[in-house]
């Protein structure tokens, strides 16, 4: 049976369970409010039908049980209609009314499709009263005390950050849920770290020819050439020039090439009074990428 709110209240009154004070408290406009709310609820009737079978799930007050009127009390101050205390949601809705909170909440009326009950009477009335201070939207059936609200805010923050991560990590779109995404993220981080290790191995293989030649060089020589350059750039040509000396075959040619490269860097640097890091690194990059330079690095 799908009673409307008003009908149910009337029925209650007939059963003399609800004191006539109830309507007094509501006032005449209260009735109007109830009607308005009821019409709003009635718009959801289609969804109501669909959800009818959900009424007994998750402890919501089912319609059948809503007719147990024996223990209905009407607390005039708090407008609580208490049913059997076993029901968890009842307890929660009691809390809603009983506690005076600084953060007022408003139940989402559309989630009332879970089951109409007598509690909706008291809730709708309390909704009407509390509409002035809306800070947080509490869903129906959830506790609205401070701790759980804080918990929920924290959880939302976390999910927001997970969404950020989802954009960064490729291939995260297919997986849903926190656990799966966490696994994806962990896999990605691990793969990146393995890549770093692999590349450093490669680098160590490619570079050994350079290293033992640095001892032969006197660092003073090079520092004298590049004193006006910032340190980073001066180091780089040292790295490059180190390879030139042991070369027997292409020695002079390469050295001249290196020199020309370095002179280009020098000239470009001297032209600019204030050179940013980006420009320096550009030169470094170009140095690395040009074939002429890279050929120095590989010895046969």
């Amino acid at each position, binding site marked *: 049976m799908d009673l409307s709110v008003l009908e149910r209240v009337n029925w209650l009154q007939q059963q003399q369970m609800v004191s006539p004070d109830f309507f007094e408290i509501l006032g005449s406009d209260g009735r109007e409010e109830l009607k308005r709310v009821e019409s709003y609820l009635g718009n959801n009737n289609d969804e109501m039908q669909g959800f009818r079978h959900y009424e007994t799930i998750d402890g919501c007050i089912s319609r059948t049980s809503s007719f147990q009127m024996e223990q209905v009390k009407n607390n005039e101050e708090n407008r609580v209609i208490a049913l059997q205390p076993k029901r968890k949601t009842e307890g929660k809705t009691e809390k809603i009314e009983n506690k005076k909170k600084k*953060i007022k909440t408003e139940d989402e009326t559309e989630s009332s499709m879970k089951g109409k009950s007598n509690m909706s009477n008291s809730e709708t009335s309390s909704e009407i009263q509390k509409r002035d201070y809306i*800070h*947080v*939207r509490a869903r129906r059936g959830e506790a609205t005390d401070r701790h759980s*609200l*804080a918990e929920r*805010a*924290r959880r939302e*923050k*976390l999910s*927001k*950050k*997970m969404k*950020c*991560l989802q954009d*960064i990590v490729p291939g995260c779109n297919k997986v849903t849920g*926190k656990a799966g995404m*966490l696994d994806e*993220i*962990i896999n*990605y*981080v*691990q793969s*990146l770290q393995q*890549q*770093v*290790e692999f*590349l*450093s*191995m*490669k*680098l*160590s293989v*490619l*570079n*050994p020819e350079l*290293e033992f030649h*640095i*001892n032969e060089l006197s*660092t003073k020589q090079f520092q004298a050439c590049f004193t006006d350059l910032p*340190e*980073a750039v001066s*180091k*780089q040509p*040292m*790295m490059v020039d*180190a390879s030139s000396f042991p070369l027997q075959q292409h020695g002079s040619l390469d050295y001249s090439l290196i020199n020309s490269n370095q002179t280009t860097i020098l000239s470009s640097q001297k032209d600019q009074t204030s050179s940013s*890091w*980006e420009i*320096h*690194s*550009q030169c*470094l*990059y170009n140095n*690395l*990428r040009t*074939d002429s330079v*890279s050929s120095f*690095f*590989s010895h046969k």
Partner: protein
Amino acid sequence: MASADKPINTDVPEKDVFALHFLQSLSNLRRQNAFNSPDDTTNNRVKKIKKAAYVSMARAAGGTNRLWSRALLRRAAKENNKVVIFSRRKKRVTWLRRSNRRDPVDAERLRNLLPGGGAMETSKLMEETAHYIKCLSMQVKVMQCLVDGLSAK
């Protein structure tokens, strides 16, 4: 409670900054004598390069502004028996808060992966992970370019 969160900032500097720092640390490595000794096995060299890569990445990406970079630098300095002095941050590390709140979503594996992850709250962990992933991918790109440049003939 329903406060507007600040936009999450996961900006990472350009590739060039990473490249610069990495090359700097590499050349530093080459200056050291230990690198040249013949008893240096491949493993040691690899480890040194790897450590240089991470340290340079930490310096390039966050310096001391990010938790993970601080933890990385501190760890590296400890291995070298150096003492690292960090400038005092405004917010204190939330040791106490974390011990009080045992999250059911215990991202323990992630904490183990991320440097300095053991001391963060879960939400902060996610932020740091995002930044760390970005920096790692940038570092990988830089190293790849370097390897390509070196190996190309």
